[in-house]
């Protein structure tokens, strides 16, 4: 017990002192620029479009293995399955394509979206389940293979397209963005880590045995095939794993916090190419 708390304390004590004055208001445009500048200044050798490749943009040895694996990546089965699922009509004769702009092809980069009608962030995963339910089908588990396959296929059709996230002129949209930002920078779990502790302060460094991915463009690779999972995982699965890794109890998949943080991070990645589905250690 005492030992556990001491671990937490050691981490608190070791954390960097805040560099900036506290301010909880949001200026997305200025923050977008600051966020990008932070990463490009810290990693001057990494090409801007390469950040979406996560740890592989940070480590030469890893990059070589990724290149070898990416010659014929294991997520191809998921993409193929997703393509078949996407093309298969629902019982009512409609299909996924009917729920999306451009029949769902090459649109992944526009998600998450802020939905003015319901006043909340809609991720691609959520839009897919809404589409299913609107057409009389049961929703998929947000963390399982069916959802991963569908989003893998949709990401694949958007490969190379620039992330294009909009914050509509509505206080609720700005509030969702701000809440996402708050979630991202809030320390949690017994290890007292925030998302930023790893992915802003320590990208490229090893934590235990993994090379940490930079937060810039981190959503562009979703969904991912992780060797550690031996399979595909959705954005929800990855976020839940992040929580567990800092000894926090994961939230419900696609809970408001997760959707907001995805919204925030995707906005920060505007202009960077979609690289999903990704392969990760």
């Amino acid at each position, binding site marked *: 017990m005492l030992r556990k708390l001491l671990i937490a304390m050691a981490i608190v004590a070791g954390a960097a002192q805040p560099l900036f004055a506290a301010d909880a208001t949001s200026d997305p445009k200025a923050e977008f620029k600051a966020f990008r500048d932070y990463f490009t200044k810290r990693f001057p050798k990494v090409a801007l479009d390469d950040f979406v490749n996560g*740890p592989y943009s940070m480590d030469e*040895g*890893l990059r*070589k*293995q*990724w290149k*070898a*694996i*990416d010659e014929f*990546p*294991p997520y*191809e089965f998921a*993409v*193929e399955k997703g*393509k078949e699922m996407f093309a298969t009509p629902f019982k009512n004769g409609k299909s996924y394509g009917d729920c999306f702009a451009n029949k769902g092809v090459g649109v992944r980069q526009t998600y998450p979206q802020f939905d003015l009608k319901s006043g909340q962030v809609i991720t691609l995963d959520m839009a897919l389940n809404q589409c299913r339910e609107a057409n009389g089908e049961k929703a998929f588990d947000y963390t399982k293979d069916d959802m991963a396959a569908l989003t893998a296929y949709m990401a694949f059709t958007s490969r190379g397209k620039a992330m294009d996230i909009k914050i509509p002129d509505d206080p609720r949209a700005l509030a969702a963005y701000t809440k996402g930002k708050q979630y991202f920078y809030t320390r949690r779990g017994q290890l007292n880590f925030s998302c930023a502790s790893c992915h802003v302060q320590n990208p490229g460094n090893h934590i235990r*045995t*993994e*090379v940490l991915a930079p937060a810039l463009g981190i959503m562009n690779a979703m969904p991912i095939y992780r*060797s*550690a999972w*031996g399979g595909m995982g959705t954005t929800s699965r990855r976020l839940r794993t992040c929580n567990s890794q800092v000894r926090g109890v994961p939230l419900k998949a696609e809970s408001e916090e997760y959707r907001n943080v995805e919204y925030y991070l995707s906005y920060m990645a505007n202009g960077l190419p979609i690289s999903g589905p990704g392969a990760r*250690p």
Partner: protein
Amino acid sequence: MNEFLDVSGQTRRTILKGAVGFAALGLGAGGALSTAHAAADVKGWPEKAFTAKSEADALKALYGKTGEASDKVNLDAPEIAENGAVVPIAVASTLPNVTGIAILVLENPNTLAAAYKIPEGTEASVASRLKMAKTSKVMAVVESGGKLFTATKEVKVTVGGCGG
């Protein structure tokens, strides 16, 4: 990568579960591989080699001999594996008359990971992905002109590939 989605149209599927002989698939030329039985390894699969604990035993079971180091065997393996579950390893050789290539992970519970038969007309070069339980020497073995030649490299593994 871009064209792969079209390949499926050209593939033909035959999934047969249970007691189906390998021969039933018409893999005629296999010889020793021509029969199989359910829930057991295919006849001709070198079980003794795959269950050997030491590299010498595995090589003896597989080829009936042991090898010697050669700079004509090229082993391409990472210095630090990104995940022991998936370690890309490639072997190539400039030796003449290569008939077989094997890859051994010396610290794995069973050292032999994979063996490849190279008939005439097929190049002495193969790439595959292997599991490594922990940091280990990896040995590439090339059978050329009836003799075995080897190359060895250490691969550091921080996340083991046998723990799931």
